[in-house]
C-alpha cells in the first residue's frame, strides 16, 4: 500500500507512531501527482516547495508531540480560496495572475493545524458549472473514466481525492459544487450549514449560498477536516457563533430508530435507472442498520432550479462587478478609454458561462424585473425552506440521490446550459435552505461509474448526518474502491 493511498486518520496513526514522516507522505503524494496528473489535470497550480516546507515544519511539531489529526496531511485547495504565495485564479483568465495579499480564514486554521498544501485544484470558472469544463485552464478528467467529467464546480478537488493526488481537499458548494463532484468521483463531500464555516477569503460567487467544505476518502476524514475549518469568524457577518463539536467523536453511534425521510419528488421524472437502483439499495442498508425509513414530500422542490438560477446569478452579477481591470486581474491591452477598458477586460477575461450568468443575473435585478424575478425567487425560497422544516418535524435526516445521473461525458451538456443546470436538481434545495448536506458513495453503475447518496440534516446538525453516513460506510465498501489509473 502506497502512502498516498491512505486516509488522513490512517496516516495520522503512522505519524504519531513514528513509522513515517510528513515529508515522506508529501513526497509520496507529489510523486503520485507526477504519475497521473497528466491524465487527470486536477490542479491549476502544484506547490511542491511550499508543501515540503510545511511538511518539514509538521515533522517538527510531531516530534514535539504537538500533532493534530491534520498535521502533515497533504491537501488540495480549490482555487477559489485565497492562499498567499501563488495565484488564486478561480479557474479564470481574469484572475490568472492574481496573487492575494491576504489569506482565507480556513487557510489560517489549516496552517495552524499543521496541514500541508500540495496545490490549488481546478474548478469551473468562478464556481459556475457542474462539470469543470468551464475552467480557463482546461477540464479535469474523471479518474474512473477519463472521457467523462468529474462533475463540478469542485471537480479538481474531487478528482484529486479519487486519484490519490492528495489525501483530502477543500471545495466550495453553492448549488452542489462539492456534493455532485463527490458523487461523480466516488468520494465523500460535505457542504456545511450556511454560516458554519467562514467565507472570509472565499472568492464570492453567490453570497447567500456559498460554503466551503471537505472532500475526502472517507467519512472520518471529512468529520475531522470539518471540525478544523468550522467556527465563528468576526470578519464574516454571516458567520454563526456556535461552538464547534468534535465531529469525529460522534462517529460510530448506532442509527437505530433514527427517522430518515426519502424525498419522493426525486422520483417523479426520469431518474437514471442505475442511480435509482443504487439509491434504493442504500435505503435498504440503512433500514437494516435500524433506521426508520419514511416518505416525505418537499412539494416546492421542482421549482428549486428556477429559484436558484435567478438568485445565484443575480448575486454573482454583483459579486463579479469588481473584476473591472482597475485594481487587480486582467486588463485588456491597447485600451485608452474607460468604457472600452471595462468591456474589453471583462469580455476577454470571463468565459462564456460566467458571462451568461452575469447577463441572467443583471437582467433579474434590472428595473422592471426585480419584482418578477429576484424578489419572486426569494419568496419561493422561503417556501422551500418551510417544506424542509415540515419534513424535519417528522424526520431527523433526509435522503436523496446526489445527482440524477452518474458522471456524464465531456462535451455532452456544455452546449445546453439548461440541461447542465438540471444536473444540480437534487443538490440545490440544500443551499437555498442553508442546510448541511453530504454525499457518500453508495454504488457503481454497470460502466463502473460511482453513484452518490445524499444525506441532508437540519441546521447545525452535521454530526447527525456524519453519523448516518459513517454507519452506512462502515457497513459497505464502496469507499475502498479505487479507480484504475
Amino acid at each position, binding site marked *: 500500500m502506497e502512502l498516498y493511498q491512505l486516509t488522513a486518520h490512517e496516516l495520522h496513526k503512522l505519524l504519531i507512531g513514528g513509522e513515517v514522516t510528513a515529508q515522506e507522505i508529501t513526497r509520496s503524494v507529489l510523486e503520485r501527482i507526477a504519475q497521473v496528473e497528466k491524465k487527470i489535470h486536477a490542479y491549476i497550480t502544484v506547490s511542491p516547495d511550499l508543501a515540503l516546507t510545511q511538511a518539514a515544519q509538521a515533522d517538527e511539531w510531531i516530534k514535539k508531540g504537538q500533532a493534530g489529526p491534520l498535521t502533515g496531511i497533504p491537501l488540495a485547495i480549490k482555487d477559489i480560496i485565497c492562499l498567499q504565495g501563488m495565484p488564486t485564479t478561480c479557474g479564470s483568465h481574469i484572475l490568472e*495572475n492574481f*496573487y492575494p*495579499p*491576504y489569506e482565507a480564514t480556513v487557510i489560517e486554521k489549516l496552517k495552524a493545524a499543521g496541514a500541508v498544501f500540495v496545490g490549488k485544484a481546478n474548478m469551473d470558472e468562478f464556481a459556475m458549472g457542474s462539470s469543470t469544463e468551464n475552467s480557463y485552464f482546461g477540464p479535469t478528467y474523471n479518474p474512473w473514466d477519463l472521457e467523462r467529467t468529474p462533475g463540478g464546480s469542485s471537480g479538481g478537488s474531487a478528482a484529486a481525492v479519487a486519484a490519490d493526488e492528495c489525501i483530502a481537499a477543500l471545495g466550495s458548494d453553492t448549488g452542489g459544487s462539492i456534493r455532485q463532484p463527490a458523487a461523480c468521483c466516488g468520494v465523500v463531500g460535505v457542504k456545511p*450549514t*450556511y*454560516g458554519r464555516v467562514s467565507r472570509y477569503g472565499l472568492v464570492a460567487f453567490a453570497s*447567500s449560498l456559498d460554503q466551503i467544505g471537505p472532500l475526502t476518502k472517507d467519512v472520518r476524514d471529512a468529520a475531522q477536516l470539518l471540525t478544523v475549518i468550522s467556527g465563528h469568524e*468576526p470578519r464574516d*457577518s*454571516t458567520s*454563526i457563533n456556535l461552538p464547534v463539536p468534535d465531529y469525529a467523536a460522534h462517529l460510530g453511534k448506532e442509527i437505530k430508530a433514527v427517522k430518515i425521510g426519502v424525498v419522493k419528488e426525486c422520483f417523479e421524472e426520469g431518474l437514471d435507472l442505475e442511480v435509482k437502483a443504487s439509491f434504493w439499495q442504500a435505503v435498504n442498508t440503512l433500514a437494516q442498520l435500524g433506521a426508520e425509513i419514511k416518505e416525505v414530500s418537499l412539494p416546492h422542490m*421542482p*421549482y428549486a*432550479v*428556477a*429559484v436558484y*438560477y435567478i438568485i445565484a446569478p443575480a448575486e454573482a*452579477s454583483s459579486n463579479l*462587478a469588481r473584476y473591472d*481591470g*482597475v*485594481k*487587480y*486581474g*486582467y*486588463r485588456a491591452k491597447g485600451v485608452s*478609454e*474607460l*468604457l*472600452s*477598458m471595462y*468591456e*474589453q477586460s*471583462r*469580455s476577454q477575461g*470571463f468565459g462564456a458561462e460566467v*458571462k*451568461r450568468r452575469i*447577463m*441572467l443575473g*443583471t*437582467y433579474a435585478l*434590472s428595473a422592471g424585473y426585480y419584482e*418578477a424575478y429576484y*424578489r*419572486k*425567487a*426569494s*419568496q*419561493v425560497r*422561503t*417556501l422551500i*425552506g418551510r417544506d424542509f422544516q415540515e419534513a424535519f418535524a417528522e424526520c431527523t435526516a433526509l435522503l436523496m440521490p446526489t445527482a440524477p445521473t452518474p458522471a456524464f461525458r465531456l462535451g455532452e451538456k456544455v452546449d445546453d*446550459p*439548461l440541461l447542465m*443546470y438540471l444536473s444540480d436538481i437534487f443538490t440545490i434545495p440544500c443551499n*437555498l*435552505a*442553508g442546510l448541511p448536506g453530504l454525499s457518500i458513495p453508495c454504488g457503481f453503475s454497470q460502466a463502473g461509474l460511482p453513484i452518490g447518496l445524499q444525506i441532508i440534516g437540519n441546521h447545525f446538525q452535521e454530526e447527525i448526518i456524519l453519523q448516518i453516513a459513517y454507519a452506512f460506510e462502515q457497513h459497505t465498501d464502496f469507499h475502498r474502491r479505487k479507480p484504475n489509473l
Partner: protein
Amino acid sequence: MKISKEEVAHVAYLARLHFNEEEKEKFTTQLNKILEYMDQLAKLDTSRIEPTFHAVAQTNVFREDIVRPSISQELSLSNAPDRDRGFFRVPKIID
C-alpha cells in the same frame, strides 16, 4: 420571446460586457430558453410570503470602532494592472 436582442444589448451594457453579433444571437436564444423555464414560478401564489434574503437568520452583527492596521501601499498596489506614484492608474476619465 421574453427578451429581445435590444434588451440583451442593454443588459450587456449594464454589465459592461461586449458581444459580437453572433454572440448576441446565441445569448438571446439561450437567455430566452432559460427565462421561459423561470416562468413556472409565476404559477405560485407568494402574495403573503416574506422573501428570504439570508440563508440563516441572524441580526445585529457589529464590530467596535477601533482602528486596525491597513495593508501597505505596496501590497495594496501589488496586483495593479497599471500604477503610478502610489495610485492605481486608469485611462483618463472625461467628465
